[in-house]
């Protein structure tokens, strides 16, 4: 892929490096099909008798290549009976426009900055560009992926389907555990229901029974459940790519969640949000890097340890060039619109606010179209997973 973001190396590895080509989105519809088979096996859903409906479930185009992973039990009845209405259709169109704008107007813009930073060697990279690149990538990956989910959910609505949400403002989280209940929700729930819970019910109990004579109750529980958590996050890392960067990335998530689970309970404050957001951004550098060596070099540049300047002309120019997209990203990755909706609701301005939103939607669509036709369009990152 052109801008060389994250590559699905796992399947290339299976091909022995001979360039075995696999269809885009394979990890999404594989997981979706697995959920159907497991649910039917567990007796949670009835087997679908119609090949047309099964085909529709597996290959429904809006979310086929990059999620959300739609679970069969959430959609089984909708396959045969859906409600269509003008309201639902127009809600779908609105949702689609929001997703398109997120992708074209924010993600593809800040991507230029992120790509610039991550295409340089550590020693050539000023500290300012490294920090800017990290923030830009953090904004890019959220607007890219949640934009795609918005478009999929919107298109689904236009056809009468109700998909579950895939994102819930992940960057406002106050812990990494909370972050994973808000980011790529359909994947987190998939791993929870089809790997974490099954392993916890059987395997973890067996492990604990085996080790309990040697440890205290608390320690043996921490080891048994920690082992399961470790396996789940290793698998989540490998789902993203069979590359050491993703293994380390997954295990870092395990380490944070395990720590959060076992630390003394504390009151969540504004600082919990700041610390969590910092961790989220720093860890994203690993998932954006092609190798661990590169990630380390990038961190060194952020700290000015590569005898690189704090800021240079390149950084000043490019940070200036993309400051508007960066600011837009920063404002809208938090629930700003929701806050405004709450303020407008019940006030005298509520009518004007609705009209403004409708006009903004048209403007967003036109601007997105102009930018997309202008050749700035880039494929979605998560197509590669």
């Amino acid at each position, binding site marked *: 892929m052109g801008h060389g973001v994250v590559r699905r190396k796992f399947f290339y590895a299976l091909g022995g490096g001979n360039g075995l080509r696999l269809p885009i989105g394979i990890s999404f519809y594989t997981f979706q099909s697995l959920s159907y088979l497991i649910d039917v096996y567990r007796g949670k859903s009835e087997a679908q008798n119609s090949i047309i409906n099964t085909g529709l479930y597996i290959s429904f185009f809006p979310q086929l290549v990059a999620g959300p992973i739609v679970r069969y039990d959430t959609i089984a009845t909708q396959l045969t009976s859906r409600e269509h209405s003008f309201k639902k259709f127009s809600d779908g169109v609105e949702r689609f426009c929001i997703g398109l704008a997120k992708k074209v107007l924010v993600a593809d813009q800040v991507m230029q900055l992120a790509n610039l930073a991550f295409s340089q060697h550590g020693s050539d990279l000023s500290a300012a560009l490294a920090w800017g690149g990290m923030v830009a990538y953090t904004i890019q990956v959220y607007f890219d992926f949640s934009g795609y989910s918005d478009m999929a959910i919107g298109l689904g609505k236009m056809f009468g389907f109700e998909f579950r949400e895939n994102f819930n403002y992940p960057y406002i989280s106050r812990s990494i555990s909370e972050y994973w209940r808000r980011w790529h929700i359909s994947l987190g729930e998939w791993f929870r229901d089809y790997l*974490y*819970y099954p392993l*916890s*019910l059987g395997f973890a109990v067996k492990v604990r029974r085996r080790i309990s004579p040697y440890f205290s109750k608390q320690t043996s529980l921490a080891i048994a459940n920690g082992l399961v958590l470790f396996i789940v996050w290793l698998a989540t890392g490998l789902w993203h790519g069979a590359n050491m960067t993703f293994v380390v990335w997954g295990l870092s998530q395990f380490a944070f969640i395990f720590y959060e689970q076992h630390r003394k309970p504390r009151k969540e404050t504004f600082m919990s949000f700041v610390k969590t957001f910092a961790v989220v951004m720093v860890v994203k550098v690993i998932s954006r890097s092609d190798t661990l060596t590169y990630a380390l070099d990038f961190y060194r540049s952020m700290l000015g340890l590569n005898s690189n300047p704090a800021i240079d002309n390149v950084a000043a120019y490019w940070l200036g060039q993309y400051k508007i997209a960066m600011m837009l990203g920063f404002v809208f990755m938090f629930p700003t619109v929701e806050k405004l909706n709450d303020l407008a609701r019940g006030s005298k301005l509520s009518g004007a606010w609705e009209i403004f939103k409708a006009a903004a939607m048209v403007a967003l669509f036109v601007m997105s179209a102009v930018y997309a036709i202008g050749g700035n369009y880039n494929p979605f990152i998560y197509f590669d997973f």
Partner: protein
Amino acid sequence: MKEKILKLLSETMPNINFTASNSLVDDGILDSLAIVGVVNELSLEFDVTFDIDQLTPQNFNSLDAMAATVEQLLKEKR
């Protein structure tokens, strides 16, 4: 049964106040990680095996609900 469960859980998971509410899961006091801890403890102590369908918020929202689930499992075992 309820008291026994409370004693067990407070020993292994002292960070969690199991009597804080009757909607432990819905109030966010018990997340999926904590539920799994409870399941492990109860499975070991009462020698029962939970089914995946039993991992619902209703079954873990209160000590009463947990006790009822364990009673049910013990009955099925007999």
